[in-house]
């Protein structure tokens, strides 16, 4: 490269970097650990392995690893949460977030284990959250997923809520939109058919995310403490589904009844008006 071309390239790059809005620049701190049960470690780029504790900053490009009893819950600044289960390994590859627009990108790579992702602002946008696994790239759009990797590299995607979750492999692309459904992917990238999630499998996965210790909370919350607090929903009302269904009723509108009545009643000799016209009388009948 000639010195002149080198200078132009350098100037262009510098200009572009300066023009990049600060809010969209890759963040150094992407979030904090909301809960950690030992043993879980973090390895920031270029630094040594550290034991993760609750409330620690999580750094861009940091590698999170857990052992058999380890768990880590990462709270991102966009309100996403990524729970890393036991025996897992994951790196935050990319995190860009603009609080003003709610846009940006979150990308991670997981090589083993199990993780749960609960969407925040970023996942509301298409193609904004992707997690690379050995067999497939998992995409999340606005929701909650669990992905469990098999020792052979394959895995199962559980779609719990949201617009959709997707699997991309060299052998294909599939989207999952039905909640509490799942798709299996083989180590070779072959994607299976969507199926209802097995409740026993879901229960087993939830057990992996339940605390193996106090998660860093001292003192931890107690059942007695929670039981006395008001519920999230009045009367445990979960009938919104029923109310949604009512939106599709086809009731007779009161004014339609009047219309039908007016159209047909006026035809009846007893009540009707078909043969009489005051206007024509006024004008034509003298």
């Amino acid at each position: 490269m000639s010195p002149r071309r080198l200078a132009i390239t350098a100037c262009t790059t510098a200009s572009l970097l300066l023009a990049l809005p600060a809010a969209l620049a890759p963040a150094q701190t992407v979030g904090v650990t909301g809960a950690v049960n030992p043993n879980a470690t973090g390895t920031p780029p270029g630094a040594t392995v550290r034991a993760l504790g609750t409330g620690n900053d999580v750094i861009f490009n940091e590698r999170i690893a857990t052992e058999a009893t380890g768990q880590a819950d990462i709270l991102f600044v966009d309100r996403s949460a990524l729970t890393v289960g036991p025996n897992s390994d994951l790196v935050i590859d990319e995190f860009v977030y603009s609080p003003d627009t709610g846009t940006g990108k979150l990308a991670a790579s997981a090589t083993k284990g199990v993780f749960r992702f609960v969407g925040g602002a970023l996942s509301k946008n298409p193609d904004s959250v992707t997690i690379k696994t050995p067999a497939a790239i998992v995409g999340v759009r606005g929701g909650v997923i669990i992905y469990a990797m098999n020792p052979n590299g394959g895995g199962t995607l559980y779609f719990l809520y949201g617009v959709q979750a997707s699997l991309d492999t060299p052998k294909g692309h599939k989207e999952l939109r039905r909640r509490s459904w799942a798709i299996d992917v083989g180590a070779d990238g072959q994607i299976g058919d969507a199926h209802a999630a097995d409740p026993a499998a879901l229960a087993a996965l939830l057990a992996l995310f339940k605390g193996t210790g106090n998660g860093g909370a001292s003192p931890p919350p107690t059942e007695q403490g929670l039981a006395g607090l008001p519920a999230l929903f009045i009367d445990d009302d979960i009938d919104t589904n029923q109310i949604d269904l009512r939106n599709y009723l086809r009731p007779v509108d009161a004014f339609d009844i009047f219309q039908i009545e007016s159209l047909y009643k006026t035809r009846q000799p007893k009540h009707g008006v078909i043969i009489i016209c005051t206007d024509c009388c006024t004008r034509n009948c003298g």
Partner: protein
Amino acid sequence: MQRREPQFRRRRRLATLGVSLALSLAAASLPAAADDTDSKRAEFLSLYQQVLKNPTNVELTLHYARLGADLGDYEASVSALERLLMYNPNLPTAEIELGLLYARLKSYAMARVYLEQAAAAPNASPEVRARAQDALTKVDRLNSPHQFAGQVELGVQYQSDANQAPGAAVPAPPGFTLPSIPLRKQSDGDVFLNAAGIYRYDLGDAESDTLEATGTLYESVFFHDSHLNLGIAELTLGPRLTLDRIGIEHATLRPYLMGTYVTLSNTSLLAGGGGGIELAKTFQWGTLARIFYEHEERGYFNSSFDPLASQLNGSVDVARLTASQPIGEASTLDLLLRYVRQNTRFNFDTNSQYRIQASYTVRYAGLLSVPGVPRPWETVLEVGHDWTPYDAANPAINPNVKRSDRSWFFGGSEFLHVNKWLAAGIGVERQITSSNIGNFSFNNTTATLSVKASF
């Protein structure tokens, strides 16, 4: 060019005033609702910043979860409560809340897992166990492939002009051989039933497609004049297909078959059959918009009551747009635009009808509080306008004048919800119809007392 009567202009001004009032009330509630949501949203975002600084603060986390649920941001509540289970895995109360959250998100298998774990938790109190079992029953009902919903309204009403006749007696014109009937408006009361139901069957595919049937039934029985008794029944049946599969989010398409049967004066009036297609989409800001097109062939039954009814045989085409916009937490603005084309055997019976209609519904707490119903009072204001021009003049009436009717209607009702399913209320509706053929003009006021059940 038809001359408008001064009386019609007065009515139009009155009706315009009614429309303005209804729209003003709706508009006035918009900023208040927006302010309330904005302030909660700001508090919610501020709370999250505090959670980031102090994630193990349980009180803060619960406050954040509660506010998230209040704002409909259930993911925030889910992540907060799931974090609590990382601090302590033995929190059946948190598991119940998570089960209810996932149920609200229509993720029923996940909801069931949490609720079952709560019910089986060794440290769950009998109350917590009972609550978990109750929630499990609700979830199982919602998760059934068979879903029903409906509304039934039963009431009495008084109509000032039940036979929809002009106010004054109209003499028959000279030379007419047809019977000359004095047309006086006649008030009457009736008992009515207005019911609508929907049944959905989950086809069990990955796209959440369903088979949907709707039914509508209206029946009125008048106290004095049984000739006015009216019955309407309608059925539709067709699949509802989700359109996410082709990239249109939160949208469904429903082709359907439909049938209609109407009785008047306790005698069959018409039977119809046809089909339609509906496109429904929920937008990001909560608007549910539905576009319909329907075509129905209709046959009329001649009777001693109306020996020439079959001259109305033909078809009806309907194009309809409805939009329902939630405003804040407890009010909704509904709009309707509709075009109806009625084709009959004779041009003078063939007509088009254009309608615009708006209604505003608001729920609120009032003087009387009802346990379990935070906003027991419901006010509905509605207003609409029809224009119905006919294709040709009726030679039996006036060969030179094509009939054209205009109607304004407005009304209001007040309901008290005594529980989640039952409400009682009163309503008043006013219809003002003017026609360029005077005999078709009439005014009617309806007062209604009814009980409404929703399930």
